[in-house]
């Protein structure tokens, strides 16, 4: 459409607030982040920062706590993303089959999503307390183990609980996304497949999956970002204990910035994370496109 002068102004007016918000609250911080990452920027030098080149990046990569946090975050993402997608899709498929109680199921399965991370984390902390209800159930009622399991006290225990929480909280969102997607699959396809004598499993892989590929990609990208964003649950449940072994990238970043005041280090760390995520997202898009052809 040709833009006349008047329309140009009108479009400008509509765009302006958004662009302003982006410029001030996103663009500026991104640039600032990049700049900060090259300076010695901490409590002691807030007024006169020294340019220290790549030193912050060197500090980040040579920091064993960062490596642990990075590995933890990767594991968290690799487990929770497929976990909640598969379970969410399963629930959506089941829901698509039933004729009664649909809305009830949907609301109940969605409850964890709308529970705030703070509340959900506190519930999990309470449930998985070494002397808590769950261990009582496992040891004294069904006698699965003879000794209380120390869910929250070790690196892997703490990570598992955080991942379990992540999956628990994410199933509902995936269910809704896939439920919506399933409704867009034309019923004729299934009917045609039935005529060809395809089994339900075959129908799922040859009709359903290809039709909802777009939604899968969408969920994959959003959830990967979400996985890297894990913060509140770990902060509330283990707070990085024991000895920073359950820290995630963001909890470690926050600790370095606001507990020790090393803003330069945290800026470098954030920048690395953002770049890794951007690359991951591009790869995910590419992979999906390749499968297309």
């Amino acid at each position, binding site marked *: 459409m040709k833009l006349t002068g008047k329309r140009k102004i009108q479009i400008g007016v509509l765009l302006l607030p958004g662009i302003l918000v982006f410029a001030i609250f996103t663009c500026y911080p991104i640039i600032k982040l990049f700049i900060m990452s090259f300076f010695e920027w901490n409590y002691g030098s807030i007024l006169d920062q020294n340019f220290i080149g790549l030193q912050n990046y060197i500090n980040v990569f040579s920091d064993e706590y960062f490596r642990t946090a990075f590995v933890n975050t990767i594991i968290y993402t690799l487990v929770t993303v497929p976990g909640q997608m598969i379970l969410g899709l399963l*629930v959506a498929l089941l829901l698509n089959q039933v004729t009664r109680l649909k809305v009830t199921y949907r609301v109940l399965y969605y409850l964890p999503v709308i529970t705030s991370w703070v509340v959900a984390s506190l519930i999990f902390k309470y449930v998985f307390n070494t002397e808590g*209800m769950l261990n009582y159930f496992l040891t004294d009622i069904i006698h699965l183990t003879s000794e209380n399991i120390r869910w929250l006290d070790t690196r892997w225990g703490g990570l598992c609980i955080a991942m379990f929480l992540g999956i*628990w909280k994410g199933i509902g969102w995936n269910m809704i996304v896939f439920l919506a997607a399933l409704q867009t699959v034309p019923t004729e396809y299934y009917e045609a497949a039935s005529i060809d004598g395809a089994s339900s499993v075959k129908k799922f892989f040859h009709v359903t999956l290809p039709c909802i590929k777009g939604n899968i990609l969408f969920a994959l990208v959003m959830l990967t970002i979400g996985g890297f964003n894990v913060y509140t649950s770990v902060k509330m449940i283990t707070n990085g204990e024991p000895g920073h072994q359950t820290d995630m990238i963001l909890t470690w970043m926050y600790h370095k910035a*606001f507990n020790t005041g090393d803003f330069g280090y945290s800026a470098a760390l954030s920048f690395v*994370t953002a770049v890794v995520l951007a690359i991951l997202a591009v790869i995910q898009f590419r992979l999906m496109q390749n499968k297309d052809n």
Partner: protein
Amino acid sequence: MKKNIKTQILCHILLIAGLIVVVLPMLYMISTSLKPNGALYEFPPRFFPDLDEITLENYQYILSQKKFYINFLNSIFVSVSSVLLTALIASAMGFVIARFNFPGKKFLFAFIVLTMIVPGMTLIVPQYELAVKLNAINSLAALIPFYVAWTIAYSTFMIKGFVENIPKELDEAIYMDGGSVFTVFRHAILPLAKPGIASVSIFNFLTAWEEFPWANTVINDDLKRTLPIAISGFFGQHQFTQWGYVFALSVFSLVPILLVFIFCQKFFVAGLASGSVKG
């Protein structure tokens, strides 16, 4: 289409089995909030308190504390304001990007996608620096622009998808009648994209309602805290935690978001169906 009864039953069984795992922690929270505080480390631990043991003392305590009302209203104020602002700004942007060509459009859109990918929290350090410069530390209202900035990329991206699904003929008709871009936006786009905008807004409401790290960093005063900060501040790590109080307050924090979700359910599924893939 006729559905097999056996499949139906099997599906229900599986769904209920899943529901148990999903809902149990929530039930435990509610049952704990109804127990007297002394019973929390009882032996044997019980999932439900006995009927005659059920107490509302935790709720009464929470309701007797003036500051929690204010925390609650703070959360409502911040969430509603940022949702409304985001909806308005993002739908204007989404509309323009979907319908017009203008210089820098490609760049703008690429930037939006980029900011969707970068987790909001990685910017917390420079945003903190910005908040210091803008004198926005310890100010409740100053949370709003930051929440808008965090949700706007995703919202614009989604709303652009919804707008593209609206037939262009409608716009044309309005332009023929001498309408401006604003008229099209108000009378064609906003009403038709409403389900989409609503579904995005529900997410945004949830984001703002439960946001923890940013508010926890910039808000200092008791009376300016939002609910998640109030709840976490109420939970003492190694001292003794009165879980009954903590969970009673948590239950209150769930109510508004539950209402929003139940009332807007329709939009929710519809919005996601039309928007998510087409972006």
